[in-house]
């Protein structure tokens, strides 16, 4: 597969390491009363859709940036690639 890195352009996906669903960026608040349940569903449950899926890739053999890639899990078409840092800062 080819991932269009926002700063470096198209790169072979074999330079990247896949982590999983981008929901892993939303780490729950450890101090809330429902922390145990929140962390359980955050760590263990997944939408696992057949279709559009926002996921985390790490450019290990490139610039060591984490990317949020929007990819269709049936056709593998990639429609969007963002720097995870920018997405994280926007969410704060």
């Amino acid at each position, binding site marked *: 597969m080819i991932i269009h890195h926002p*700063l*470096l*352009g198209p790169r*072979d996906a*074999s*330079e990247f390491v896949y982590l999983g669903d981008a929901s892993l960026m939303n780490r729950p608040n450890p101090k809330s009363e429902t922390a145990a349940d929140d962390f359980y569903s955050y760590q263990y449950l997944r939408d696992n859709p057949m279709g559009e899926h926002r996921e985390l890739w790490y450019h290990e*053999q*490139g*610039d060591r940036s984490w990317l949020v890639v929007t990819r269709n899990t049936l056709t593998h078409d990639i429609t969007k690639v963002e720097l995870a840092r920018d997405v994280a800062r926007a969410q704060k």
Partner: protein
Amino acid sequence: MPKLSPTLPLESFSKHWPGLTIEEHYIGELISLAIAREEESAFKTAFKKTFGKAPPEPSQLMAVKGGYAIWSSLEQYLILLEGENINADKDIAKKMGPSAYTTLQSDGWASIDIKAKTSKSTALYDVLERFIPLNLRQAPEGFTSRTSAHHIAVIVIKYSETEIQLLTPRSSAGSFLESLIHTAENVLS
């Protein structure tokens, strides 16, 4: 008094073919610079003062005072300084001030130069197309990028149409060179 002497990662390796030369290139000093959070402008002015130019864009080698500079990651740059100076990172740190964090990286990398005799000979790119997954044939001069070749990390720098430099981690440099020479033999001999 005990005495220490430095060794090159590839012991000054050099091999020649009719159209091509592959040899170890003395790397000089490598320093990694990182921009302190929210001090981009202070960093930029310090960088200009220290190296004579604004920090480079991704994928584009930039000549600076004392050598070259490469964008290596988000808010990180790699400076290649000619000459030997074990405390190069400390000297740079003094000049750059608090907006930058420096790390000495010279010993972490080995450097290999691949040079073609003439720009007409395609030997340089015939070998590299069997080794590096990037499109170096059509890349502009000054193109630089980090990728992997034969499962080993490599920073590619296209100095000119006839000279390309490969930086690769020191511990696996011997393994990397062996693979590169094997590929060159397959293509050229």
